[in-house]
């Protein structure tokens, strides 16, 4: 829409912004020569993984952080010298939404209205559309802390819109929020821009949100990797994206193989093959084993363009995927299986858990086969975490049956079962003051490993996860992607046969995410069963089967293709997994929002 309107002064104009931070690892250039403009009345997306500099940039724009050098004009004000004047016209929502959890919805709104000097007599008229848009009207007297994640996010946005600002800055408003809430939020924001001519700058780590923006700015390691209309950026990858199928090779086996081929910039396993982004306009010659490969051009997505830009724009930044042929000792274990084995490693039958009168998990039944990657999807509060806790023996079910490797979790010794489980939580649960090696030593000792066997195992794990060069660094100082790798390493170091992963890839960059999934695929090929929760629907595609939960119940279960098939309608002939997910959740009667 910006392209057709007459040229106006940009709402945001940035020239050569630099901001550095001192850290124990040296000076970090959080923003390195960043310049771009934002036209008024448009939605601009700031896309990049964690640590790219998105938050730093938004804070500078909001006048709450200074820059080292460069010029910025926001709504005609210089944020470093005219912050007070600027802040009267600015709406800003930080990460975690910045709400007072011990104030009610109405009190939070009133606070922001008072601080922005919104006259009392205009409030009702300003609140009414915000409350109806966010569907928060019935919850005015509810404490913000008692709202669901999606509602908190909407309240945060409503608070930053209470004075009808011409410019709205939102820092990762959709992170950790389920797809339904994400879609609703986007409807609110799009309407705001259209009706009020608000200028919107939103940061996000989700590549698939790019299509929502008029323009995108790709930020990576503090530098701008690309900027423009998303369609134009996607077009750059046109002709470089192919789909590869090799008979008798599962995508999971093929993907790491292709990733090592020179000239291939990116490889992602899909259900029926591997999607590759290549340097030239034709796939490079494949090695002999892949002689039977069939390739076909496919239309590019934003993520393909991102990976292409990353490969070109940041030489040396790319890391090779860890595809070491070492088998980490699983092959000799009972977990090793021959192809086609269908032994069930997790069996859940009629599992129910009440908290008081609230039913968190309601007669859940499913099973996970040996070596399977099983995805558990659902909105916030669907019962995923409760299920995980019961599986790991941290929480007792109210009723139902729970078997791990054929053993009843409820009647056998919890400690023995735990040795078979590896658990990796969203927050990684590492000791940040300990070094990589000390963390691994601690976690293996906790599982009763010692002596020579422990030393060998740690060396092996460090090698496999490519952590050897970092083994003497403090875990807390490692970049996010490395911390994630270490957390995974720590959770598999005791050779578990089942791996529980609770939103393991939140916020990590696409490169690290690919490596992570490659490792998971490898583990599953060795017979480790993986149960994973995620908000990334593209990640759910890596799973063999997924179960979608809502309000503690199972809505559907099947392979990603089956679930997409169920969602096929005349209006939407090729639904994505996200479409299917949202379609299913919309059919569920709305529950009372509560924790």
């Amino acid at each position, binding site marked *: 829409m910006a392209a057709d309107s007459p040229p106006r002064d940009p709402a945001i104009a940035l020239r050569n912004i630099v901001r550095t931070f001192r850290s124990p690892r040296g000076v970090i250039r959080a923003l390195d020569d960043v310049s771009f403009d934002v036209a008024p009345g448009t939605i601009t997306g700031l896309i990049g993984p964690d640590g790219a500099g998105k938050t730093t940039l938004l804070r500078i724009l909001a006048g709450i*952080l200074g820059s080292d050098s460069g010029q910025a004009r926001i709504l005609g004000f210089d944020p470093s010298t005219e912050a007070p004047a600027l802040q009267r016209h600015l709406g*800003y929502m930080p990460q975690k939404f910045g709400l007072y959890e011990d*104030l009610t919805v109405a009190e939070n709104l009133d606070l922001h209205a*008072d*601080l922005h*000097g919104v006259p009392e007599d205009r409030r009702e008229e300003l609140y009414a559309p915000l409350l109806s848009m966010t569907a928060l009207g019935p919850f005015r007297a509810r*404490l913000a802390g008692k709202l669901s994640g999606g509602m908190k996010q909407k309240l945060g946005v409503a608070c930053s819109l209470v004075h009808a600002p011409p410019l709205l800055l939102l820092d990762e408003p959709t992170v950790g929020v389920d797809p339904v809430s994400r879609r609703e939020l986007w409807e609110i924001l799009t309407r705001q821009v259209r009706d009020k001519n608000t200028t919107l700058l939103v940061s996000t780590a989700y590549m698939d949100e790019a299509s929502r923006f008029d323009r995108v700015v790709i930020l990576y390691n503090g530098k701008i990797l690309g900027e423009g209309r998303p369609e134009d950026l996607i077009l750059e990858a046109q002709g470089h994206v192919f789909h590869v199928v090799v008979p008798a090779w599962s995508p999971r086996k093929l993907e790491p193989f292709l990733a090592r081929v020179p000239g291939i910039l990116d490889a992602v396993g899909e259900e029926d093959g591997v999607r590759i982004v290549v340097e030239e306009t034709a796939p490079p010659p494949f090695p002999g084993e892949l002689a039977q490969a069939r390739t076909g051009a496919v239309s590019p997505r934003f993520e393909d363009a991102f990976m292409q830009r990353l490969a070109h724009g940041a030489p040396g930044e790319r890391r090779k995927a860890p595809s070491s042929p070492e088998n980490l000792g699983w092959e000799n274990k009972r977990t090793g299986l021959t192809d086609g084995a269908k032994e069930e490693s997790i069996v859940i039958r009629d599992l129910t858990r009440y908290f008081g009168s609230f039913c968190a998990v309601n007669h859940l039944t499913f099973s996970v086969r040996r070596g399977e990657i099983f995805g558990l999807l659902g909105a916030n509060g669907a019962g995923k975490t409760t299920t995980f806790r019961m599986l790991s023996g941290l929480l007792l079910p109210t009723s139902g049956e729970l078997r791990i490797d054929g053993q009843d979790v409820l009647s056998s010794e919890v400690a023995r079962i735990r040795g078979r489980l590896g658990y990796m939580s969203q927050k990684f649960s590492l000791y940040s003051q300990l070094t990589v090696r000390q963390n691994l030593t601690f976690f293996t000792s906790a599982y009763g490993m010692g002596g020579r066997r422990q030393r060998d195992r740690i060396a092996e794990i460090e090698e496999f996860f490519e952590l050897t060069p970092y083994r003497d660094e403090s875990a807390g100082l490692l970049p996010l992607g490395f911390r994630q790798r270490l957390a995974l390493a720590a959770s598999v170091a005791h050779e578990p046969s089942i791996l529980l992963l609770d939103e393991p890839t939140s916020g990590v960059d696409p490169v690290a995410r690919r490596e992570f999934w490659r490792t998971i695929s490898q583990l599953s090929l060795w017979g480790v069963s993986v149960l994973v929760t995620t908000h990334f629907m593209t990640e759910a595609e890596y799973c063999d089967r997924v179960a979608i939960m809502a309000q503690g119940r199972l809505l559907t279960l099947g392979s990603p293709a089956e679930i997409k098939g169920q969602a096929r309608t005349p209006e939407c002939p090729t639904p994505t997994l996200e479409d299917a997910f949202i379609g299913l959740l919309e059919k569920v009667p709305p529950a009372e929002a509560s924790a």
Partner: protein
Amino acid sequence: MTSQPSFMERWVRVRAMIRKESLQILRDPSSLAIAIVLPVLLLLIFGYGVSLDARHVPIAVVQESRTPASEGFVAGLRQSPWFVPRSYPDIHSAVAALRRQDVEGILWLRENFGRSIESFRTHGAHVVVDGVDDNTARLVEGYLTNTWETWIGFRNLRGRALSFQPVNLDVRIWFNPDSRSRDFLVPGLIAVIMTLIGALLTSMIIAREWERGTLESLFSTPVTIGEILIGKFIPYFLLGMAGMGVSVIMGHFLFEVPLRGTLLVLTITSALFLTTALGMGLVISTISKNQFVAGQIAIVFTFLPAFILSGFIFDIHSMPLFIRVITHIIPASYYVTILQSVFLAGDIPGVIIPNAIALFFFSLFLFTLLVRISRKRII
């Protein structure tokens, strides 16, 4: 689009901050607990549980021979409010009782007690005290001496014997005539309680906003850092004054601590001290962005000194010189001096004015520091 905010706008913002902070105090059980429940608890513990004076101390009495003199002295002992004498036939059984902690001390009147009094020799009476509790031991010793002297004086008055004490000691304790430790503990406790509310509670509130990410949201609005600080100062000031009110009412009516000065002086000096304590709390929370660290700093730098070095329990004059110098930089020590004067002696300008001036300079220093170090910036 005026860039200079009007007074009205500022007032609306300050009012919004005060309202927000007050709602948070009312809804957070832990802050109310620190402000109201903790003072009541501390007062009850110190008022009833901890007593630094000896009353009804059980004491063993061994009379090797019963003479009119020894009987007379034991009768005098029985009349004193401090002792409950228990008779034991010999020293061995008395020592056994001391070991069992049945008694706190032994009064051993030897066989020659009666004669030694008549003949002015002084070896007839022995006192053994249990040194485990040094404080009680000294008190028992002191009170026994006191009782002894009273009794001798009484005898002399009746002219039965010549006084062998050329100087007659007449001990009189001024300002706390009953020697009740409560009377100086309770005023001291008020200083501790106000430090607790002013510094400890306040030190956590800004740190909490850092942790929860709410300060970032506040910073992006037109509110100024001064308005944020005023918005935090006023509710916690009122909370602190309420805590003081509760302490004074409990102290005066429940523990019968006298209030010899005026309420006006008490209120003004308390407000001054509370301002200093709030200043310390706000400075700490501006420096530390983590609630746990802020709380630890507040305890080590404000609460413990107020407890130990303010002269509340331990007399400053009996401290080593080095420690005495340190007490001068502890605001609570000035406030404790004022409080002890207001409660036990009255409004003595010579005590109150210099100490109040010291408190004023403390708060001036702290708030100047606060304005210099707090900026409306992340990091």
